[in-house]
C-alpha cells in the first residue's frame, strides 16, 4: 500500500509542478493552498469551482455583447473581461489572466476580430485548466483513498 501511495504522491508532485511550469497556475494558486486546512480540506476545489462558473457566466456575457448585429458595445465586453481578469488573478489562473489582459486591450481599441479571437481562446483556456485541475484533484483523492497524505508541493 505504501508503494502505491508513494507512487501516487510522486505522480501528484510531478503533475502539479508541470501545471506551474506550463503556465496554467501561478503564485496565487499557492496562496490559496495556504488557506486550506483540515477544517476546510476542499477550499481550493470549491473556489476554483466558483471561478469556473464565473467563467461560463462572463464568457456568455461577452459572447452576447459581441453578437450584437450593428454596433458592439465594447465597454460592456470590457467590463466582463475586467471581472474575469480579476477573478482569474485571485485564483492563480495564469493563462486565463494573461488572455484577459490582451482581451482588454482589444476592447479598448474597439477591435472586433481581436475580441472574438480572445473570446475563443479564453473559452478554450479555462476549459483546459478545468480539466487539468480535475485531474489534479482526482490524484489527491486517490492518495487519500490509498491511505496517504497529499504532499505539499514546493514549486521553487
Amino acid at each position, binding site marked *: 500500500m505504501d508503494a502505491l501511495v508513494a507512487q501516487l504522491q510522486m505522480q501528484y508532485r510531478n503533475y502539479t509542478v508541470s501545471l506551474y511550469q506550463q503556465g496554467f497556475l501561478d*503564485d*496565487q494558486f499557492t*496562496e*490559496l493552498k*495556504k*488557506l486550506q*486546512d*483540515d*477544517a*476546510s480540506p476542499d*477550499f481550493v476545489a*470549491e*473556489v476554483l469551482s*466558483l*471561478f469556473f462558473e*464565473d467563467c461560463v*457566466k*462572463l464568457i456568455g*456575457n461577452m459572447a452576447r455583447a459581441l453578437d450584437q448585429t450593428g454596433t458592439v458595445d465594447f*465597454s*460592456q465586453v*470590457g*467590463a*466582463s473581461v*475586467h*471581472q474575469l*481578469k*480579476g*477573478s482569474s*488573478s*485571485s*485564483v*492563480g489562473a495564469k493563462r486565463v489572466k494573461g488572455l484577459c*489582459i490582451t482581451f*482588454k*486591450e482589444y*476592447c*479598448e481599441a474597439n477591435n472586433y476580430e481581436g475580441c472574438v479571437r480572445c473570446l475563443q481562446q479564453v473559452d478554450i483556456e479555462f476549459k483546459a485548466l478545468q480539466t487539468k485541475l480535475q485531474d489534479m484533484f482526482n490524484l489527491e483523492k486517490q492518495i487519500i483513498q490509498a491511505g496517504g497524505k497529499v504532499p505539499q508541493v514546493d514549486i521553487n
Partner: protein
Amino acid sequence: MARDGGVSCLRSSETMSVGIGKMESPPLDLDEVHVLAVDDSLVDRIVIERLLRITSCKVTAVDSGWRALEFLGLDNEKASAELDRLKVDLIITDYCMPGMTGYELLKKIKESSSFRQVPVVIMSSENVLTRIDRCLEEGAEDFLLKPVKLADVKRLRSYLTRDVKLPNGNKRKLPEDSIPVHTSPPPPPPPSPLTVSPDSSDSSPPLTVSPESSDSSPTLSPVEIFSSPLSSLLDDEDDDVLSSSPESSPMPEESPVRRQKMGSPGLSYYIKLGSSKLLINMIATCVNKFFKITTCVYLSHN
C-alpha cells in the same frame, strides 16, 4: 461553503444584533475583530473572507457599497437606534465596483460620525498612483494590490490588534497623517486606464455565507501583536523595493506599490512632488523602521 444570500455567520454573544430586512446578522462578540468586506466579485469575496477568518477575524462580506452602507446603517438620514451597538473594526473594500466605487464608499464612511474612526482599506487590481493617493488622502488606512495574499492580511491584522490592545483597554485610532510607502516586486500590470461600467449581467448573490462549522481556530501562526514589533518588521520581506507604474506621471520602474501605515506621527507622507514623493516616502519608511528598531533594542536592554 454556501454561496447565496445571508450574511456571513458570526459567533455570537447575547449583547447585540443588527437586522437588515431578511438579512440577519448574528450578535457580535465584543472582543473579536469584526471586518466588513466589500467586493462585487464572488470569487474575491470568498477568498478575502477566508483570508480574514484564517487570521481570526469575524467577517461580514457584502457585494456592493450600498449593501455596506445598509449594513452600517448609513443608507438613510436618520441614525439607527442600534447603530452604537454595531461593532466594525475594519472595512476592506474593492476599489472598482459597479454603482458605488470603493472610493465613494470610503468618503461616505469618513463623512459619517459613527464610523469615521473605523480604518478603511482599499483593494485594487490596478496599480495606479493617483488612485492610491486619492484614497489615502481621503483617509484610507492602507491600499492593497490584488490579488490579496495572506501576508497582506496578516499585516493588516497586526496593526488592527495593536489598535485594540492598549493597557487602558481602550481602542485608539492610529494617527492619520503619516503613511510611508512599502512595495513589493512582483511583475507589473500594464498601465492602462480602467473602464468601469455597470455590469448588466446577472447580479451575484448579495452576500456570502460562511458556515459556522468553519469557525475553527486558525492553523497559521498567531497574529503578530504589538509586543513583538521587531518580528513584524522583519516579516516585511517584500517591502523593500520602491517603484510604481502610475497612469499620468512617468516612473523609473514598473513594480507595483503597496502603501503601509506605520503609525508614526510627525513624518507626513504627503508631499506633492511627483517622482520625488515616492523617494521621500521610501526614506521616511526607512527612518520609521530605524526608529522602531532602535526603540525595541533600547527597551530590550532595560
